[in-house]
């Protein structure tokens, strides 16, 4: 009940109606120009960020994720083209006008002596509060709601230096929420976090985008998490291209493989992960139980076995182990040892 109400407060103010483009770029070229030398990182970008969507920006290092974020937020000037928010060109806006449109969560660590979560989040109200910066009842309500949305109510008056990294990140997200902008941009919000916290933050952002109608754009290295949580992915590759789409479409059309092309690994469309390209020379055939199959295949691939239909060595995966030449094996370690023996024997026999 309370949550519904608090969400309304945020949605009422956001200028979105349905899924229209909130931020668009027109023939945007990003990069650096120093002393007449122009270094184009990406060019001809026509991107669209829509209200109520979580967009993940992914791509290999050096493809220009940070440069794009910096350009979209107006921290850096574009080489060519423009970024429009609600029809207004971002590079022409004043700092204070930008602060009403985009809220930021950056990678730099915030260390403030004596500041509580509440104090930190209240700084997000800076663009809205009066000249003296007093916290009125309305401001206070916004701050409380932002903290509630990231589930930090119980730590509201705790010193930020006593928070864990995950809690600290949630507090920073609350600060961005309190800023009450239609767009939130986050630069690698899951860096430095452990897996449970990474999942937590991604889920939180996904939920926030859908419930508050904000457009949330984040850059990340977490490919599998991005594939699961993102409504849309902006996939950047080093050859000056950004492909946009629903994650699954990008999987089907092979964009991921192209973006992350390498000899030592490939994008495994079966599980949305990167798999290493092991040198596989020896052939085995595996059949049987589905859940154990995945892990069996992984172990075999690492040890250099290619799975081929009806190969000479046949492994049957059972519910609690494996059967190889009618011998029952209970651990992967034993299994690998056993197969190794088989191949070794056949080599010496010849």
């Amino acid at each position, binding site marked *: 009940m309370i949550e519904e109400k608090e969400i309304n407060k945020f949605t009422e103010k956001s200028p979105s109606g349905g899924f229209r483009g909130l931020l668009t770029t027109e023939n945007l070229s990003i990069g650096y120009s120093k002393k007449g030398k122009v270094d184009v990182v990406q060019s001809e970008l026509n991107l669209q960020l829509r209200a109520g969507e979580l967009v993940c920006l992914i791509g290999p290092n050096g493809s220009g994720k940070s440069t794009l974020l910096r350009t979209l937020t107006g921290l850096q000037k574009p080489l060519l083209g423009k970024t429009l928010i609600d029809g207004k060109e971002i590079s022409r806006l004043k700092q204070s006008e*930008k602060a*009403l449109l985009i809220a930021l969560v950056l990678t730099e660590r*915030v260390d403030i002596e004596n*500041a509580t979560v509440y104090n930190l989040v209240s700084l997000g109200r800076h663009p809205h509060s009066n000249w*003296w910066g007093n916290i009125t009842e309305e401001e206070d309500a916004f701050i409380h709601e932002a903290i509630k949305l990231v589930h930090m109510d119980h730590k509201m008056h705790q010193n930020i230096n006593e928070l864990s990294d995950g809690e600290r990140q949630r507090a920073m997200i609350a600060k961005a929420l309190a*800023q009450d902008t239609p767009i939130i941009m986050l630069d690698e919000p899951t860096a430095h976090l452990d897996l449970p916290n990474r999942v937590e933050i991604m889920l939180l952002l996904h939920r926030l985008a859908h419930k508050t109608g904000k457009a949330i754009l984040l850059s990340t290295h977490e490919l599998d998490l991005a594939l699961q949580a993102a409504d849309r992915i902006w996939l950047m590759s080093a050859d000056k291209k950004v492909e946009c789409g629903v994650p699954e479409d990008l999987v089907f059309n092979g964009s991921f493989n192209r973006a992350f092309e390498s000899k030592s690994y490939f994008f495994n469309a079966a599980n949305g992960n990167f798999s290493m390209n092991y040198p596989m020379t020896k052939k085995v055939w595996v059949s049987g139980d589905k859940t154990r199959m995945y892990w069996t295949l992984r172990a075999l691939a690492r040890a250099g076995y290619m799975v081929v239909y009806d190969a000479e060595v046949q492994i049957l995966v059972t519910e609690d182990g494996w059967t190889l030449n009618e011998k029952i094996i209970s651990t992967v370690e034993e299994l690998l040892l056993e197969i190794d023996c088989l191949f070794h024997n056949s080599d010496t026999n010849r």
Partner: protein
Amino acid sequence: MKSRTFLLFVILSFLTVGFFLADLAWGSIHISLHEILSVFFGRESDGINSEILLNFRLPKAITAVLAGASLSVAGLMMQTLFRNSLADPYILGVSSGASLGVALVMMAASVLPVAFVSSGWALIVAAIIGASVVLVLVVGVSFKVHNAVSLLIVGLMFGTIAGSIVSVLQNFSNPDAIKLFVMWTFGSLSAVTWSYMHVLLPVVLIGIGMAFSLQKRLDGLLLGENYARGLGISIQQTRFLIVIATGLLAGGVTAFTGPIAFVGVAIPHIARGLFRTSSHKTLLPATVLCGASLILICDIISQIPTYTLPINTISALFGAPIIIWIILKKK
């Protein structure tokens, strides 16, 4: 929490007033509180006592309050601007810059029009320019050097350079000017007569007024410059205003009292510790009161021996241990 802050402000205000009166009473001639009050309320008791009180001790006590408040507020702003808990006008060479300005005026006094020099405006203008120039240089370096301790070393180097230039100037000056300058460097609150007060007071009030008007932006700066930009704060403009305000406060006070060490670094820490907040809305008035009290105490202590001690030495006795404590706490 709010009532605690209020209570602290009440206590600090009473302490400041108490120390102010004690500073008036204390000295080579003891003047009782009763006499002080009767002089202030126009019921003059004794000609000599009222002369000492009104023309010597009162301007000195007011100067102590102004110096303490100015240096502390300047220190607080610098600590926020550099996001460095060890920043202060003295350590980062701003006071040395002011000294250089003062040295230039004192030793070049023979060429400048007498009226300009003796009115105090020459000193204060030179000191403010000197302070601001060093501050601009330190801000410039802070873009390249992010390490807190490295920045302090750079500040020390600027201070050393300014000191060396002063030495070179001394070599070419006449002995009278040198003596005047050396006396100035010892630091003294009694140098400010009423006519100088006409110069010092408005400069300090403008500086403190600027600091208070910047309090909301200073809070935003605590997040770091990129976050502050994201909140709509114009960094260039804010940095410029902080440099001007700090130059007015540190330069203005240093011009008359000589360099007073470590007050700027110590007081903001004491204020943060007492009020347990990071909000400049609370910290600014808190540093004003704490700073005024501390310099008043220093001045009272300096009166205890037969020969008055330089204020600089006593403030260093307070401040230097606090810096060591901050560094140890950070480890």
